[in-house]
């Protein structure tokens, strides 16, 4: 009987170990990507400073990532001179009262440490944070909601930091031939 008890105990211990196996990584991707890459950036007048002028807030969506980078670097001419915060749903988090306090505590860091004086908020259509285009019903309803949220975000920013300049942009995917281009619209 004692022996049986021991085997049962051993079985129990084995079973306890099983969940640990579940956490092991079973991905088939390689372990090592490239390593020790050096990238040299020539330091202009802007890059030597320890503060920057602008905070850019964008969404994480991969369809817009490259467009966002080009927009900030070239179109706005802010290269090396902006903090970029990108969070899922962009400004949806700021309008949502649950996460507003947390987000403002993060923005405050950027304001106080990098001494920014301008905020650029970029929102986009078909955003997963809102549940995609389908969640709104129609394109006009989506446009209205997004612009209303953007304007509310601006109001919130100005309430907290009256000296900041806030620019709002809305992105949408436009089909041109076989390619999809990203179109920026400034919201006044």
């Amino acid at each position, binding site marked *: *009987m004692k022996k049986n008890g021991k085997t049962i105990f051993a079985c129990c211990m084995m079973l306890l170990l099983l969940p640990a196996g579940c*956490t092991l990584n079973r991905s088939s991707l390689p372990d090592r990507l490239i390593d020790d890459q050096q990238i040299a950036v020539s330091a202009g007048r802007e*890059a030597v400073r320890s503060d920057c002028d602008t905070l850019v807030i964008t969404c994480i969506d991969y*369809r817009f990532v490259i467009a966002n980078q080009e927009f900030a670097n070239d179109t706005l001419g802010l290269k090396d001179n902006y*903090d*970029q915060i990108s969070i*899922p749903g962009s400004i949806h988090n700021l309008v949502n009262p649950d996460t507003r306090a947390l987000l403002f505590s993060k923005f405050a860091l950027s304001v106080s440490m990098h001494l920014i004086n301008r905020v650029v908020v970029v929102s986009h259509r078909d955003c997963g944070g809102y549940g995609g285009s*389908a969640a709104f019903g129609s394109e006009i309803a989506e446009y209205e909601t997004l612009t209303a949220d953007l304007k509310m975000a601006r109001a919130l920013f100005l309430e907290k930091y009256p000296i900041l300049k806030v620019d709002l942009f809305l992105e949408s995917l436009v089909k041109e031939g076989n390619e999809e281009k990203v179109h920026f619209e400034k919201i006044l």
Partner: protein
Amino acid sequence: MPRAKNLFKESVLSFSIMLILLLINFSKMHVILAADEASNNNQLEKPAKYSKFFDEKKKWCDSLVITCNDFRFNTATQEFINNRLGMKGTYDYISIPGSIRNLLDRNTRDLVLNKFGVSVLLHHVKRVIILGHQDCRIGYGGTKNFKEALDEYKTVCKDLKKARTRMGIRFPHLKVYLYYIAILSENHQRVYNFEQIM
């Protein structure tokens, strides 16, 4: 004694049933994981919400990049990911102040993981690339907060590895890569070194 024997028999029976159930569970899990992989190749049914978009979709997302919002590292990070890793246009880009520090903080952990979940669920990413950097003023109070350069390196690496464990528990099918960015100033240039941490 026969009673004890019965008890033993019953317990053995129940254990064997449990084992079989577990084995079935595991085989199912493999099937589910395989299905996950397949969904990246557009073979599974499409979610109704995005059906219009998914029909026209050509590019797919395969990575999630998590980095800090520091302006000094923006250009180099973009260059590194777009060109060196060759992932232009196929990654979600999350940049939050203090990078991975938020994941280790107890107050913000759940929120941050939920936000990562959006990317994982909607865009079906396969791997996560987390970048930590030297002189992170928001997360660690900058280099001056540490006694030595090595100290800082060790602290950041430790945090990165912790973050990998956390991600592994929540999303076991993801592969997590870690990078540490060091910055050197030479005459008129800034040199960024991207080192992979295993």
